[in-house]
């Protein structure tokens, strides 16, 4: 028995971006149906490192990141749980003078964005963080960046959206998306047919298929960062660590497990990925180098996921150039967790106003277009229900 539904805004994808968009749209009074092919927050949004970090982002993303920072600060109020979010500070380490110079350059360039970065020299590192290995010769600290548990936070956004009246449909893969000039019709294998004038493409690493469906081909690639977790250890890492120039990133969860990410795994298929043995070996080696204290510890599990990347490592956020009512929000290159809640709000603003208060033009899908847009970029105004 096929169910037929209609709403103001259909959302494809129940990760943190889609779910926070659903929440924001509900607060504006729009009717929302979100279609998630598995469980909300089961992909990148749920299995990522958990960094809630502004530092290190391209300057283009900092307005979004700052907006997100404000949202994270109110997280419990928004989604009902603290999701183990702590503003522990994020320390980006330099292992060489050129790394340090790069950190210094970023320190200068990002000065106006309110991150309160502090440059630390080797002496300061040893003094404040004696558990850091000798290879760290300096660093840049963002005191209010931090980390959270993505397995709790991402599903909680969907739950909050549902509590506000969003129709969240899990285990609802979409077989077909069509547009008749005014409305989108989404068909979910004889179970559901959904009609809406607006469609948010928040399908994560798979959003390129949706964009291509509407003749907006983007050069998305999938990447598979490797994650590893230790047994519970006495608390020693007081902040979240990153390394300039790549390497590993590490944090210690409140239970004492250290969560470490880095290197690349491989895809098993379109949907699943796994750490490679090289990646595991690299993570082990680099962790001990960075934090010698961990040499006696054990790794108890590894995993990987699927992240969508565009070649410039910037996301696609904004109106479709081909299809009125289609709005994109994907391709976060492994860095979507912190800015996700802000992107959700921006997508909601795009529905309501056709524009966002936060600058997003660098993320326009236009940068991949080879032809001029086929219609006026102002979508029809939505009606609130």
């Amino acid at each position, binding site marked *: 028995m096929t169910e037929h539904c209609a709403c103001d805004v259909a959302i494809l994808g129940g990760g943190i971006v889609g779910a926070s968009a659903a929440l924001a749209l509900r607060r504006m009074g729009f009717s929302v149906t979100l279609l998630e092919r598995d469980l909300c927050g089961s992909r990148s949004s749920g299995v990522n490192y958990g960094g809630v970090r502004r530092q290190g982002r391209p300057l283009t993303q900092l307005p979004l990141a700052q907006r997100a920072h404000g949202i994270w600060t109110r997280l419990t109020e928004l989604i009902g749980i603290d999701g183990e979010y702590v503003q522990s500070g994020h320390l980006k380490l330099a292992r060489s003078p050129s790394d340090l110079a790069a950190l210094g350059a970023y320190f200068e360039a990002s000065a106006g964005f309110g991150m309160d970065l502090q440059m630390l020299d080797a002496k300061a590192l040893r003094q404040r963080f004696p558990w850091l290995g000798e290879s760290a010769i300096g660093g840049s600290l963002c005191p209010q960046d931090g980390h959270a548990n993505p397995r709790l936070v991402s599903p909680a956004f969907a739950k909050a959206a549902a509590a506000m009246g969003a129709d969240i449909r899990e285990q609802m893969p979409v077989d077909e998306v069509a547009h008749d000039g005014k409305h989108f019709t989404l068909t979910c294998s004889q179970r559901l047919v959904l009609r809406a004038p607006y469609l948010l493409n928040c399908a994560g690493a798979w959003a390129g298929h949706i964009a291509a469906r509407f003749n907006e081909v983007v050069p998305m690639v999938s990447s598979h960062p490797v994650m590893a977790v230790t*047994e*519970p250890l006495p608390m020693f890492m007081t902040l979240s660590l990153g390394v300039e120039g790549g390497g590993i990133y590490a944090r210690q969860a409140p*239970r*004492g497990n250290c969560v470490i990410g880095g290197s690349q795994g491989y895809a098993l298929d379109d949907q699943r990925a796994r750490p490679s043995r090289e990646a595991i070996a690299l993570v082990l080696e680099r962790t001990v180098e960075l934090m010698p204290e961990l040499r*006696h*510890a*054990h790794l108890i599990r590894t995993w990987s996921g699927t992240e969508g990347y565009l070649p410039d490592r910037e996301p696609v956020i904004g109106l479709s150039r081909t299809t009125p009512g289609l709005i994109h929000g994907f391709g976060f290159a492994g860095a979507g967790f912190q800015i996700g809640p802000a992107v959700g709000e921006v997508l909601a603003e795009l529905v309501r106003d056709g524009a966002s208060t936060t600058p997003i033009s660098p993320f326009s899908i236009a940068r991949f277009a080879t032809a001029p847009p086929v219609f006026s970029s102002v979508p029809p105004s939505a009606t609130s229900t």
Partner: protein
Amino acid sequence: MKNAATQGQFRRLSETGRDRVSFTLDGQLREALVGDTVMTAVLSQAWQLRVSEPGGDKRAGFCLMGACQDCWMLTESGERLRACTTFIVPGMRLRSKPKTPDEA
């Protein structure tokens, strides 16, 4: 065989004609027999192997076959070993509980 003066969880029923091995447990000199696992060496004269992280409660292993991972013990130098699958070695310095003030 009667247990040594210190009682423990395990009881030796047989196989006691083996050479002795000295080791240290929580700062105290102890003896076990060659071929004892660390678990046997400790539990034959004590009642716990470790403290569980979430609740701080005492643990003494469970499956004895390397599956439950509840018998990981600390050494004085910070290494960790799985008590049921590691043999006691002369001079091992083991900890089954955190150091007390008078031990430090």
